[in-house]
Structure formats: C-alpha cells, structure tokens
C-alpha cells in the first residue's frame, strides 16, 4: 500500500512538473515521494533513525535513512493516522505521549514500517523518540546504535561525538558490508556545504519586507532537508527555492497575503489538512514567514576533518541543550525576520518542545513579541476542532491589529 502510495505520488508530481505546473514545493515533495518509495521498495538497505542523525554520512554509505517521525507526519497528512494511533493505544501505550511516536509505533505493529538493516538512535531531540527507536529495534530484532549528542560544543564534547560517529560508520560497515569511500565522503561534505550555503541565501531572502515566503512554502522544510543532505537533490531543492524567492521579490509578487503581519511558527507544523494557514493569509493578510525548525544553518564542514564538523553541527542545533539557547535562537529569528507575533502549537505530549512553553513565551515577550499558545495535537487530527483554534488565532490577529508596530 505504502509503496503504491509513494509511487503514485511521485508519478503525479512528475506529471504536474512536466505539464508546466512546477514550484519549489513540488520539487521538494517529489524528493519526499522518492524517499518514501525507496523506504518501501523492499530492495534498498534502510535505516530508521533519530531526527538529528548525520543523514549525509548515511547517504554516503548508500543507506536510505529516515527519522521515524517522518512516518507519523505522513500518516497524518494522508488522513489515516487515527487507526495507527489506536493500535498503539491497545498495547497500553499512554495517550499522554507524543502522537508522532504513537502513530509510528502503530505503523510498526500493523506491519507498515519496513524492516530496517539497523537503527540509529539520537539523544537529541527527545527521550520519547529515543525510546521508540529502542522499541523498534526490539520489535525488528535489529541492531541499534545510539548517538549521544552532548549539550555544548566544548572540545571534549565535539571529540566524543565525532568518535561516536566514526564508531557509527564502523557499525554500519559491519552490518551492510559497505565501506565509506573517502572520495564519496568528500563529495558528500561538499554537497552538504553547498546546500547549507544556498539555505542561508533562502533565509536571507525570506527576511525581505514583504517576505516572498508564503505560509506553506517552507513548512517542514528545514527538518526534512536534513534527509537529503550530501546528495545533489538537496542542492537542487534549495536552489529552486532560492531562485523562486528571488523571482518573487524582483517581480513584487507576494501572493495572497499582503504581508500585513509576519508570523514565526515555533516548533513543528500541524501535519494534517486544515484551514488555518489559508484563513491567516486570505482573511488577515498574514503569513508564517519563518519556522523555528527551518532557519537552522551551520558552519561549513571541513572536508579534511568531516567528523568534527558533523559533530559540531549536531551539537549546534538550537533545540539541543538548554532552553536558554533555544530562546536566544527564537529571539534572533524574531529580530532578523521582523516578526509581529509567534505561534507555538504546543504539540500535545511533546515534553521537549512544549515543556518549557512559559519560558519561551517570557523570552519572546522580553523583546516585545507576543506569543500565542495553540495547544494542538499536530498529528492526531481526531482531536482537532478547527473552530477553537480559529478563535485563538483570530483573537491574536485582532490583538496584533491594535498594537503599535514593533519594527517599523
């Protein structure tokens, strides 16, 4: 079923692109469909991973790898997530837990997760995600390698993580029989650096007033791009976005939203279909122009010493470590993008992301940026009552309309 779904999706998008209906989002979705098809092909060597695994390194070793939350998001976006979550509930897995992880667990129980060659767990971002990888390793009877991501980039910490990544390469080699080719590693690092360079350009363009970024353009972009790093496709997707944003600015084409208010979306988006973003754009002239999880870039990785670079990158992700770092990142985004207000979905059950709701709110308020806490389950559409969230967002818009402009 999944293989067919991704094959159909891939063909559909290819058809649309051939028919002249192309956009950066289409290129991006096409690559997602291809990744999905490979995951379910039954022939590729695949690995289930934590969100902050070094996917470029795994790609260079010819392993089709993906973080498990991707499956949760996909089940949500196709509107079938409910039955998978229920399957997990039946095992006595508490409904207080994150729905990404509950849906992934349900997919595994229902035999909808392909059996991997191995699994890579990461301690960042969350305890729940690592626990799910442990459970999957047990269910599949496959080996699990755990990457401990330290809290800061002290020399000792970078060395520790770089060593773990070397061990991880040896682990993958032992299981797959594939060696990491040095030339390919160098090429991979160069591609990652190129993609990251273009991403910096994209984000610089998105900061333009008015912003060329419409609400849906970059949703899930940053976190999913990590899966394509190291390959040419990451460079191509990023390039398409950059060129399109540049074109929009040159043409003064800012879409349906007049850019009245510029919103920052905290953490991840709502993964199922809903009308809130459309309502914001069409009724309030407001766009989400940046996501906390999108504008994350890192220093170029030295091809001569890639492991230290990979380690530094993993440690530097702002949602790693203490909340102070994350709040500083959010403040920086708010200033750079001249944000009028921030929306925190407070994804139900996410202790890592939502746990410090009050600290995030206080941090942004310090620089005058109001925060709306939605309290929504971003995956389980059965719990979604659009009216309640509309009211909260509309009231937020009404409030922004009465406030003196922050940045102008």
């Amino acid at each position: 079923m999944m293989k067919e779904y991704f094959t159909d999706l891939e063909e559909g998008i290819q058809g649309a692109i051939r028919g002249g209906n192309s956009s950066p989002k289409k290129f991006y979705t096409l690559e997602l469909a291809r990744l999905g098809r490979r995951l379910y092909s039954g022939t590729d060597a695949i690995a289930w991973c934590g969100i902050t695994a070094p996917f470029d390194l795994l790609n260079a070793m010819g392993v089709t790898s993906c973080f498990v939350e991707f499956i949760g998001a996909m089940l949500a976006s196709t509107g079938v997530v409910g039955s998978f979550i229920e399957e997990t509930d039946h095992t006595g897995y508490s409904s207080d837990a994150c729905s990404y992880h509950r849906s992934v667990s349900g997919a595994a129980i229902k035999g909808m997760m392909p059996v991997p060659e191995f699994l890579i767990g990461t301690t960042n971002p969350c305890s729940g995600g690592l626990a799910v990888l442990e459970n999957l390793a047990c269910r599949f009877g496959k080996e699990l390698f755990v990457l401990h991501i330290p809290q800061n980039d002290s020399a000792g910490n970078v060395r520790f993580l770089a060593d773990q990544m070397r061990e991880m390469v040896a682990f993958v080699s032992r299981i797959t029989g594939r060696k990491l080719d040095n030339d390919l590693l160098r090429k991979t690092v160069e591609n990652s650096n190129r993609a990251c360079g273009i991403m910096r350009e994209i984000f610089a363009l998105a900061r333009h007033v008015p912003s060329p970024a419409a609400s849906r353009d970059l949703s899930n972009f940053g976190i999913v791009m990590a899966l394509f790093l190291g390959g040419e496709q990451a460079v191509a997707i990023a390039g398409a976005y950059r060129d399109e944003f540049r074109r929009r600015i040159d043409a003064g084409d800012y879409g349906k939203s007049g850019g009245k208010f510029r919103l920052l979306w905290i953490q991840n988006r709502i993964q199922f279909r809903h009308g809130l973003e459309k309502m914001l754009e069409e009724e309030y002239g407001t766009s989400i122009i940046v996501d906390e999880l999108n504008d994350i870039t890192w220093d170029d990785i030295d091809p001569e010493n890639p492991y230290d670079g990979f380690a530094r990158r993993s440690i530097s992700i702002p949602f790693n470590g203490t909340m102070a770092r994350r709040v500083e990142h959010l403040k920086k985004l708010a200033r750079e993008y001249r944000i009028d207000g921030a929306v925190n979905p407070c994804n139900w059950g996410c202790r890592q992301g939502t746990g410090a709701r009050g600290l995030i709110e206080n941090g942004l308020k310090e620089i005058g940026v109001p925060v709306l806490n939605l309290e929504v389950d971003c995956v389980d559409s059965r719990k979604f009552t659009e009216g309640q969230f509309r009211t909260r967002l509309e009231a937020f818009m009404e409030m922004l309309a009465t406030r003196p402009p922050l940045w102008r």
Partner: protein
Amino acid sequence: MYYLGIDIGSLSCDAVLINGGSTIVASAVVPTGARNREAIARATDEVLRIAGIARADVAAVVSTGYGRDRVEERLSSVTEITCHARGITALLPGTQLLIDIGGQDSKAILLGKEGNVIDFAMNDKCAAGTGRFLEAMARALQVDIDDMADMDIGAEGKQSISSMCTVFAESEVVSLIADGAPVNEIVMGLNRAIAARILSLVKRTTLQYPDMKVAMSGGVARNAGVVRAISFLMDREVSVPKKPDTVGALGAAMIAKEKNASRRPVVSA
C-alpha cells in the same frame, strides 16, 4: 439608530442592544440548543421586543462567540476575546485584567486603556478550570450548580483538590464524600483548584496583577464562590458586572457601532 451584539456561546446565546449614545437598551439570554440560527432569531426578537423597535432600526450587527459566523446579517464577526475586553471596559472602565470563564473556555485578558487587548492566555484543551468542570463537580456532589455558588461559605480551606483532570477530580470528590469531608470544604477546595488554574493563566499574561484592577465575566462569574476563591488567591478585589454573561454581546454591540461609523457608503457600479 441601534446597534446589536450577539454572542453565540456553547451554552447560551446572548444579545445586547445599545443606542447611539452607547447605552444598553435591552439584553437577552437564551439557551443555544442544537440549532444556532433559531437561538439567534429568538435572542434578536427578544431584545427588539423589549426595546419596542423594528429590525430596520438596527444599523449594524456584530457577532461573536463560537457560532459567530452563523449570524447572517452581521456586519462582521469578532472573537469573544476582543468583545469581552470592549464590553468590560464599557461596564467597568479602567479594568486592566479580565478573567472570563465560560462553558468550555477560560481566559485571562490583559487590557489597554481603550479596552484593547494587550495579551491573552486561554486554557489548555481540557475542561479544567471551565464551567464544564464545575458542572461535572456539581454532579459528583449531587447538588444544583446554582446552589454551589454559596456552598463554600463557612469553610476554612482545609480540603485541597489535587487533581484538575475532570475525570480524576470527579473520583476524588466522590472519595472525599465517602471519607465524610464536609461539603462546604470540598466546594471551597474545588473553587480554589479552579482559581489556581486561572492564576496560572493570569501569570502567563502578566506578573503585575497585584497592582491591577481586575474584573470577571462569563457565566461562571455568577458563581460567587469561584469569584471569592480567585480574589483570595490573587489577594485582590475582583469586580463582577451585573450581567457577567452578556459582556461579550455588549462588546460586540459597541464594535458594531464603531464599525458602522467607519463604514464607507457602498458605491454601486
């Protein structure tokens, strides 16, 4: 000319009619029931009847509440957060912080001088700290919800209710009854549990509340025990207007008047 505000809530549909001088001419509260449109028509008819005016005398209608988009004749719809803020400023000028507890939502709203919303926080999705929670507890206590308002009197605050989850709290109340805890202590415990939730919402909007003029609106503001508990925890007087459940509709009527004034004449092509 008259201006009509309609607030379609989950439990009741409220209408307030004001005149050109912003004075309340009539108000009505009818149960929402299963059909929003019928409730809207009944509330509207009721205020027109009380005021003794015709529909044509109403220059503009603004709707609010969860069913706000169901009012066909509206000039516009505005959320209840904005409307409550405007309404309370008309009734109790100078209010800086408004606590609104309705059937399924509770809110803390920080107000500017003109009744504009500076910030607000709403309850999490569960019913803790809302009218629904109180209803469930009244059921567990086997008392009438209206009678609960004064049942805390004479209690000393000896009984705390630790769980705010409606299901857990209900069984907690049942076991307290079984243990022979006095009902007035249980009721005070429940009121204070709600007040603690509300205080947490308040603190998310401002920590300056001890110096603020605080008011309360929404159906639960009719429950004097809850108001007392909030006042106790905030160590602050909490004012309640005479008809706390029509504050949103009044705000909507005020906004109707304002929007009508800035309405441009329609130019036909």
